[in-house]
Structures are given as structure tokens and as C-alpha cells.
């Protein structure tokens, strides 16, 4: 676990590799601690997507880190003091793994003992996530959606027309070149991608019984599409999943979630109370959880794809006009400031 202590390398790419390993490690740690669902999520997110996004960002910003100018002494001091205080605080904590800890005394027993009768889903995590604490989860999904919008507004480019005109001629040659370079990879991933998509669906709908659920399935689904986009070119992937469609899917997922709640309101229950969705409360719960997980899956997958496409699109745009982009945006500012100075 302490491998990460060596993250102080200068080379940012190495840092990203270490982050990936760190994600893998922490996921296995979660497995050891019996948190299957969490390990699942961490596996797909921490090791895969986050590393990719960081890489994409690094390719745009350059990988070398500048040497430090000020001394880290003060920072170290602060860190040590805070750490010392925190360790002092842990002395009052209940021992690791003890059953009598206050955390286990209040709501948890009810979830564990009654969820089978009340919700009828073997995976307690799913039942808590989608039924008991559904409103909370709705908020989380909304946050993810907002983040997607944020990335979209920060990184999306009004460059579609220009690039498509430019690329038409050069596309064929690059296509050929890429095909030769990645022959093996392409064939293998052509075999693999359907499996990955199938597996994502399995995770999505098997979440009631085993580890899994909307969040994980969404990420896996997005990973498959990212793989496609990386090997077959972004434009091709964009042709399959065009931007507005994905945005629509993201919104629909969130809306589906919220509308399940509203429907249950109309049927006379509370917001997101699925008992009233069908005649039999258990069937209603099943239906509600299924719909909600579907909504979560849609939103997460779509947002992840949006984020990746925007990063990659930005990167391609930068590469097609190498280094110009940064200076171009920099220079008007400089000119402005010099002009002002000259005027005064």
C-alpha cells in the first residue's frame, strides 16, 4: 500500500503508471476487506479510466515537472503536525474489525436483517444504494451529470466543420497507416469489444444478485467504447456515437431516475418509494431498482464517453496544429498588454 510513497518522481508519465498500480492495489485491498462492490468500481475506475484521462491531459500539457523553487520544509511540518494529530485521534477509534464498533450498531443491522423481506434483493449494497438511499444516489448521479456538462463546456470545440474539411483528404492515408500499425490490436479488440459490452450488460442486470450495478456497468461500457475510439480513430467512434446522441442519453438516464421517483409519487407513495409501482411491493421494488440502475448506467456511461471524447478531440485538434494552439491563445494577450503599455 505504501508503494505510492514514491510518487515523487519528476516524470509525470511515470506518476500516472504508479497511479494505475495504486488503483489496482487499493482495489485488491478492498477485496480483502470484503467490499466487493467497491472493489469492482475501483477496478474499473481507478485503474482504467482515471489513468487514461490523466494521460490525455498530460499529452496536452507536457510531461516534465519543473524543479521546486521553494523549500518544502514548511509543507512537511504542516503535514507532520496534521498526521500526528490524526494518529492521536485514531487512538480513540474502535479496533479494526471489532463487531461492537458504533458504526455497526444503528442502521446497518436493519439493512442486513430486513432488506431481504423489504426489498427482496440479495445484494445488500444494491438494495441500500437504489432503494433505501435512492435520493442520495440521485444526487450523486446529478453531480456526475454536472461534471460531464462542465467538461463539455470547458473542452468542447466548435471545430467540427473545419476539421472535417481538412481531414477528408488526409484521412485515407492516416487510416491506412494506422491499420498497418495496429493490425493485431485491432483484430483482437474486435473480438473483445462485444464481450466487454456483453459483460457490461451482465454487470448491469446481475447487480441485484452479485456485485455490480449501474455505476460499474456504465464505466465498463464506456471503457469498451473508449477502446474502440483509441484503436479505430476518434472520428469513426464519433460516427457511431455522435455527440448529441450521447448527451441525450446522459440526460435521459438522469431523467429516467427522477421520473421513477415522480411516478411513485403519483402512485401515492413517497418520492422514490417503489412499493407502489406494482401490486406486489417486492415486484415494485425490483422494477424500481432495475429502472434506476438503468438510469444510473446510462448517465455514467454517457458522461464518461463525453469526457473522454472531449479530451481526445481537444488533443487531436492540438496535434493537427502543433504548438500553435497554445501560443496563438497566448499572443493576443501579450500584444494587448504591450499595446497598453505603449499607449501609456
Amino acid at each position, binding site marked *: 500500500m*505504501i508503494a*505510492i510513497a514514491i*510518487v*515523487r518522481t519528476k516524470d*509525470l508519465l511515470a*506518476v*500516472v503508471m504508479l497511479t494505475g498500480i*495504486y488503483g489496482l492495489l487499493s482495489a485488491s*485491498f478492498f477485496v480483502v*476487506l*470484503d*467490499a466487493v*462492490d*467497491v472493489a469492482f468500481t475501483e477496478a474499473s*475506475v481507478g485503474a482504467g479510466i*482515471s489513468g487514461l*484521462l*490523466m494521460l490525455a*491531459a498530460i499529452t*496536452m*500539457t507536457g510531461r516534465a*515537472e*519543473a524543479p*521546486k523553487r521553494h523549500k*518544502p520544509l514548511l*509543507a512537511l511540518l504542516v503535514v*507532520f503536525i*496534521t498526521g500526528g494529530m*490524526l*494518529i492521536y485521534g*485514531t487512538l480513540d*477509534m474502535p479496533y*479494526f*474489525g471489532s463487531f461492537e464498533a458504533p458504526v455497526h450498531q444503528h*442502521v446497518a443491522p436493519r439493512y*442486513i436483517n430486513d*432488506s431481504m423481506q423489504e426489498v427482496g434483493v*440479495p445484494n*445488500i*449494497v444494491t438494495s*441500500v444504494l437504489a432503494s433505501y438511499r435512492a435520493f442520495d444516489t440521485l444526487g450523486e448521479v446529478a*453531480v*456526475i451529470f454536472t*461534471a*460531464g456538462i462542465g*467538461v463539455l463546456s*470547458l473542452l468542447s470545440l466548435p471545430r467540427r466543420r473545419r476539421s472535417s474539411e481538412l481531414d477528408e483528404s488526409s484521412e485515407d492515408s492516416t487510416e491506412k497507416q494506422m491499420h498497418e500499425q495496429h493490425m493485431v490490436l485491432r483484430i483482437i479488440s474486435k473480438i473483445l469489444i462485444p464481450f466487454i459490452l456483453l459483460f457490461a450488460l451482465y454487470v448491469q442486470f446481475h447487480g441485484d444478485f*452479485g456485485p455490480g*450495478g449501474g*455505476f460499474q456497468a456504465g*464505466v465498463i461500457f464506456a471503457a469498451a467504447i473508449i477502446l474502440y475510439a483509441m484503436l479505430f480513430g476518434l472520428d469513426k467512434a464519433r460516427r457511431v456515437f455522435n455527440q448529441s446522441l450521447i448527451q441525450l442519453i446522459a440526460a435521459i438516464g438522469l431523467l429516467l431516475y427522477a421520473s421513477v421517483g415522480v411516478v411513485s409519487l403519483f402512485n401515492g407513495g413517497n418520492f422514490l418509494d417503489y412499493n407502489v409501482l406494482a401490486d406486489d411491493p417486492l415486484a415494485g421494488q425490483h422494477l424500481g431498482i432495475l429502472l434506476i440502475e438503468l438510469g444510473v448506467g446510462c448517465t455514467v456511461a454517457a458522461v464518461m464517453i463525453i*469526457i473522454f471524447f*472531449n*479530451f481526445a478531440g481537444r488533443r487531436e485538434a492540438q496535434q493537427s496544429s502543433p504548438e500553435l494552439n*497554445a501560443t496563438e*491563445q*497566448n499572443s493576443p*494577450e501579450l500584444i494587448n498588454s504591450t499595446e*497598453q503599455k505603449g499607449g*501609456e
Partner: protein
Amino acid sequence: MLLGLYNYWIVVLLMMIGFYIVIAHGNLIKKLVGLTIFQTSVFIFYISMGNVDSGSAPILAEGVARYSNPLPHVLILTAIVVGIATTALGLALVVRIKESYGSIEEDEIQIQDQLTEDKTSC
């Protein structure tokens, strides 16, 4: 007897590493990595609180008497995905900063800011 707390110490150690990276490094991406580490330490903290001796994963099955606490798992599960979304947002901001300043080192950005401020004020 104090060994019962070792998990929390690891958490504190990780947290402090992340914290140190965030405050001591100038590179913005490095800062985000530090933030991720900090985040993960919190996750581990929650999960280790939810763990129970001889407990099993919280999926109901025959012949299993004791389960770990499912509540922290739920909280952390969503937190991980939210965390990646916010990290992506942060990275997007970094990319934009790079584009408009030409650098992602904190000091250089500050110097540039100072320069433009000076120029506009005088």
C-alpha cells in the same frame, strides 16, 4: 494491543502523502494526483470502518452468518465515481489553463498573473 489500529495508521499515512503532494508540489497535474491519493485514503478509511472480523461480503447467501457493514460500501461506491468525474473536471481546467498560460506550474502562472495585473494597473 495497539496493533488493532494499524489500518487507520496506514490511512493517515496515505492521507498525509496526498496532502503533502497537494501543498508542496507546483505542478497542477501532480496536485490532482495528490488529491486522488487523499481521496483514496478516505475511501480506505470508510471501508475499514465497515469491515467486521470473520464477516463476509454483504451479499446474502446461504450459511453466512455475519456480513460487513454495507452502508460505507454504498457511500464509497458512489463517491468513487463522483471522484473520477470531478477529477476529469479538474483535468479539463488544467488543460484550459495550459492553453491560456502556456504552463501548468503554479509559480509561473502566478508570475504571469502578476505581470498582467501590473500592466493593467499602471
